[in-house]
């Protein structure tokens, strides 16, 4: 279907159905029935089998009309895509609709204190007792877990096979006595994540997804959606301006809760945009050493953007094989953020000791300085990105591994 045709169909449908005085959930159910909640999904699951480009046209029309879309923000996007890709029809029937309507929120239960970069080395236990899965263990870095209804859980169900083969993937009901989420405070003072403790938590057999021992495959599916940004559709989906109508109040509250963990994310990228204005304002733009460092930052930033545009163009033209360009981009973002933090320190000089309202740009610069360390860790450390680049882009040989054989015999954290 052509973009123009899509535009006119969506417009006509919105003319007939969109009203600001409906309760949010009621509106989203109408949206689902109309097939406009997730147009890139198949027709039997609320969609129209659109491409992502066609889906973007639909989203554009919704934005132009200030019409509230289906709930997509935060980890629930990962949940719905994973269930759609790997779930049974029964699971899709039970879980997809309340995700799209926004009734259920979700969280991701992947990382553990003992397994960070080595996700497949996880040791949360899943044991089948009396026909139910009993879960024991601890997870960490769980955005939204403190208010989530369900969690995407990976746990070890077989300790006698190699590590990737003994993992199973569960849809965990978070509202049960065996599950406790505790906020985790970061070095920059924010609490964007939680730790989740599971003590004899229960999962019914029908909430195992993808089959026993097949959890690593399902987890890779979730991670591929995460890399493609399905968990970060927060900023783009906001409604512009102060729109009037009851539905906007409910929607804004949903967005606020979903966006709250991410308020400091621009700071962890280094706030390159503030470098020149601050250098001019403070007069440090005249300092030769600072000028050198600013110029290096501009070269890095400009060059990385150009390289990424060029990689994107080659990908679209199909002239290069699909390489993990994301890893190069992620490593570039780390280098840029570190250089920006370095330059902000040179510009602030002794004032870099101050924080909050007492400091430059109402604390934004101080927040940059203590948030940048996160960018080279979150979503795969720089060291892991370098492994991926060297092995998959440069074809360098894999290193010696000490984690082959039955997982039970592998050395791991106490």
């Amino acid at each position: 279907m052509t973009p123009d045709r899509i535009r006119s169909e969506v417009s006509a449908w919105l003319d007939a159905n969109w009203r600001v005085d409906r309760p949010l959930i009621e509106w989203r159910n109408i949206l689902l029935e109309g097939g406009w909640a997730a147009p890139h999904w198949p027709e039997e699951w609320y969609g129209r089998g659109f491409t992502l480009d066609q889906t973007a046209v639909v989203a554009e029309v919704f934005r132009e009309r200030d019409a509230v879309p289906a709930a997509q923000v935060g980890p629930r996007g990962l949940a719905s895509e994973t269930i759609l890709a790997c779930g049974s029809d029964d699971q899709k029937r039970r879980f997809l609709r309340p995700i799209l309507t926004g009734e259920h929120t979700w969280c991701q239960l992947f990382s553990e204190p003992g397994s960070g970069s080595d996700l497949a080395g996880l040791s949360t236990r899943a044991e089948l007792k009396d026909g139910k899965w009993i879960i024991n263990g601890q997870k960490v870095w769980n955005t939204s877990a403190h208010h989530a209804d369900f969690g995407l859980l990976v746990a070890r169900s077989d300790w006698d096979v190699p590590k990737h083969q003994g993992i199973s993937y569960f849809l965990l009901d978070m509202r049960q006595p065996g599950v406790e989420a505790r906020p985790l405070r970061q070095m920059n003072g924010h609490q964007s994540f939680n730790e989740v403790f599971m003590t004899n938590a229960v999962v019914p057999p029908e909430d195992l997804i993808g089959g026993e021992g097949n959890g690593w495959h399902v987890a890779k599916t979730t991670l591929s959606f995460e890399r493609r940004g399905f968990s970060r559709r927060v900023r783009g989906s906001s409604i512009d301006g102060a729109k009037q109508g009851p539905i906007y109040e409910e929607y804004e509250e949903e967005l606020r809760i979903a966006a709250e963990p991410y308020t400091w994310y621009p700071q962890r990228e280094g706030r390159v945009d503030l470098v020149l204005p601050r250098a001019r304002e403070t007069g440090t733009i005249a300092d030769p050493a600072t000028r050198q460092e600013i110029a290096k930052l501009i070269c890095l930033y400009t060059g990385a953007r150009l390289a990424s545009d060029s990689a994107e163009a080659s990908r679209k033209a199909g002239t290069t094989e699909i390489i993990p360009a994301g890893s190069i981009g992620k490593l570039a973002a780390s280098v840029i953020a570190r250089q920006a933090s370095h330059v902000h320190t040179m510009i602030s000089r002794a004032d870099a000791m101050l924080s909050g309202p007492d400091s430059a740009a109402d604390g934004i610069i101080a927040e940059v300085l203590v948030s940048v360390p996160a960018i080279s860790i979150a979503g795969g450390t720089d060291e892991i990105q370098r492994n991926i680049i060297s092995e998959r882009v440069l074809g360098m040989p894999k290193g010696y591994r000490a984690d082959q054989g039955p997982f039970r015999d592998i050395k791991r954290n106490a």
Partner: protein
Amino acid sequence: MQTEFSKEQNLLRDIVSRALRDKSPVTAVRESMATNRGYDPVVWQELCGDAGLAGVHLPEVHGGAGGGAAELGIVAEEMGRTLFCGPWFASAVMAGTALIEAADEEDRGALLPGVADGSTIATLVLDDLNDPAGVGGSISSAADGKLSGTAAMVLDAHVADLLLVVASGAGGLGLHAVESGASGLTIEPLQVVDSTRKLSRVALADVPGRCVGEVSGDALNRIWDRICSALAHEIIGGAQHLFETTVNYTKERFQFGRPIGSFQALKHRCADLLLEIEIARALTHHSARCLDAGAGEPWAASMAKAAAADACMSAARAGIQLRGGIGFTWENDTHLWFKRAKGSEVLFGTPAIHRERMMTMLEGAA
């Protein structure tokens, strides 16, 4: 503005790459660099006279192919990759660019065809190779047109038929054509780090020359930018050669019972290098597109020169280090590219000078 190479440009790269691999393998580079002349006239005729590599960026009316900075950059990149040894950069890039930007129409018509087909070897005589602001400080032209002064380092002057001298006169800077046998002209070859790029000291004592055009401050900066963009391409070609051969070496060299490329210390260094080179390469290609479109950042050439030079030196250091002892021998080829990298790092402005130049432009634009 263009963000990708066109089909024609990719075809040009393939042709140039094949010609250079064929005519200028590293064995030939080693032979040429050991001679005083510094190039092989037969190869010069084949690459410039037959294949037209000296005129790729020159106007068609003057015997060139009518390309722009992008096409010149493609040739320069492949030249750098194969470490071509000869006066191509001095003649085609430096002298050719100076003639296009500063010479009068009549003189362009007289001088460019020889440069374009390689029958004339020309060079550009600048008395400062660090910063355009310093040009004209040492060489001056008298009222009668005679030139006096010294250029401490001139590329390939010892083989040049035609020297284009930038000299300061009563009305500002001018571009003067001097023939190689002119009276009062002394050309003294210098001992150099990079034997693939010959340098001479050029002294002028009342040398008769012909003024072919004025060189305004803007024109000098345009010449500088075009040369720096082409040089950045040459540098990035060398960086890619160094990087690819080094990565390949780590896959083949065994120590402790495994290829050394399986050690993370080396893998991570290579991954960082890839990133540095990709960024510098993107800036380099961008600089040519900005020049051709007359758009984009006015400091694009300085960004390219600074980033490419730093990236290439990183690749050169890693090229030696990751090979270990063998990389430090004369027999191994890595040092040839290392020395070119070092020379190109400082030619036409160190990275620090270019970063300062770029900040000056950026603040001027604010």
